[in-house]
């Protein structure tokens, strides 16, 4: 697949090299340096950095402002956008705002329901869903049109991504659901955190049988476990998360002090095994409030150094 945008992530994927992305959650306040600090830790070990958009519906500094901060640092951000909080007018407007700062990657999501966050009494929007957001960005980029049909000037040049959770139910349509996103125009996928590798392999087989792996770059999502408690929490409390008993057992089987190391080990082993799966084109390392361990995971997984592709220079 030839790159269609100036996205550094797209160049790397198109070159056939495994890509590595990670994410930073913006702060719960207006301290922009918090984002910078997190990014500094991981910047040499990843190709692009996702900025989450009010994840788990907890109010935070907005993803749009945060990606601009990364861009000004010379880094390659991925703008996450959920359809929960903004209608099609606000989404298009924010996409143009991001494009005006030459943000070249977007991740189109519907978003967690607001009842999980700090404003459970809020109205939700869901004017469009994640697939329709994908279609909308592609329309703006490829046809240079607003959704309302008008022409737009200086179209956004964004590499269009989405998430995918192979572990949610009903399992039988999860590959077909990905096919729908591909039909909508998605170009890269970051999956939900993978702990159940057997099930993931089964899903990837379905994906390959449908030929989808040749139409979209799939980045396997991994999250290192910090403790046995976190493993149990993810298993029992996070909807759509599949943490097998063996993983919980393995984390519980070592002393509390050794659990972080065990978590990193499991993560690195997972990446090694995922590398062998046909159709996996890279990794998305979601180290939740644990950015300092990302470089080590990347190195131990044999994904370092990263390819030397410079981001487009950008300054105000």
């Amino acid at each position, binding site marked *: 697949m030839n790159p269609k945008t100036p996205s550094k992530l797209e160049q790397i994927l198109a070159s056939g090299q495994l890509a590595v992305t990670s994410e930073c959650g913006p702060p719960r306040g207006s301290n922009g340096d918090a984002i910078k600090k997190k990014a500094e830790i991981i910047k040499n070990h990843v190709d692009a950095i996702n900025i989450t958009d009010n994840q788990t519906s907890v109010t935070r500094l907005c993803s749009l402002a945060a990606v601009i901060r990364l861009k000004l640092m010379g880094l390659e951000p991925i703008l996450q956008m959920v359809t*929960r909080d903004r209608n*099609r007018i606000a989404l298009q407007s924010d996409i143009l705002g991001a494009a005006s700062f030459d943000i070249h990657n977007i991740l189109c999501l*519907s*978003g*967690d*329901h607001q*009842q*999980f966050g700090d404003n459970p009494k809020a109205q*939700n929007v*869901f*004017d*469009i*869903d*994640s*697939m*329709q957001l994908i*279609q*909308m960005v592609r329309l703006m980029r490829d046809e240079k049109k607003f*959704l309302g049909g008008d022409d737009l000037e200086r179209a956004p040049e964004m590499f269009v991504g989405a*998430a*995918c*959770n192979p572990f*949610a*139910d*009903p399992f*039988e*349509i999860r590959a*077909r*659901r990905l*096919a*729908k996103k591909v*039909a*909508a125009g998605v170009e890269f996928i970051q999956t*939900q955190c993978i702990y159940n590798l057997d099930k993931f392999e089964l899903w990837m087989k379905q994906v390959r049988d449908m030929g989808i792996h040749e139409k979209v770059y799939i980045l396997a999502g991994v999250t290192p476990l910090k403790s046995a408690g976190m493993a149990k929490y993810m298993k029992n409390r996070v*909807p*759509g998360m599949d943490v097998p008993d063996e993983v919980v057992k393995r984390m519980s089987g070592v002393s509390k002090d050794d659990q972080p190391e065990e978590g990193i080990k499991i993560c690195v082993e997972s990446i090694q095994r995922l590398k062998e799966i046909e159709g996996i084109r890279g990794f998305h390392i979601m180290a939740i409030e644990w950015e300092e361990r990302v470089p080590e995971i990347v190195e131990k997984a044999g994904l370092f150094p990263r390819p030397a592709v410079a981001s487009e220079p950008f300054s105000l």
Partner: protein
Amino acid sequence: MIVAERKPLEEIIGFIKDYKKILLVGCNECVTVCYAGGKKEVAILASALKMAFLKEEKELEVKEVTLERQCDQEYLEEIRSIVDQYEAIVSMACGVGVQFMAEKYQTMPVYPALNTLFMGGAEEMGVWAERCQGCGQCVLGQTAGICPITRCAKRLLNGPCGGSTKGHCEINKDVPCAWQLIIDRLKALGKLDDYDNLMPIKDWSAERSGGPRKIVREDLRQ
């Protein structure tokens, strides 16, 4: 039908605490069927209000009436001759009935005794559930007869989100995942391939977003 439930007694007392004579009006339609505002509930609320006033050493006269429909001009006329004898009306109809009542009797204070909840039906005795949000552009023909706008907490049109677990919605284990239901039924109908069609971006102008809705049927107008 429209499903409603009674407001807490304290809230209703708060509306009428300064009155001595009220007209308590039930409705014989939906709210009777869902045991919220029919003749029986009018009688129960009337007793409860009178007892609450007595406790405060106050008196309250309550006239109990249940109309065939409060969303119908014709039936609202039935109380015209007695309305003036009371200081306020408490309506046990849905929000439509309360407003029609207020429009009909411009100089009478009208208070709601119910919270109007949704358009739905009884899944079993004592259990009512929502089925329709009146979006004005029915999609049931594309979704195996199950409404994702009503029954998916994110009103997703293109399939289950990543939080669907063992048939349940991510917001609550007691809420079935609408898309699990749709997929199951598409399968039962032998039409699972229909799932592969991308549902277009929805026109919400026929819904609440487009402003208050109205239908004018010239063929019926007098």
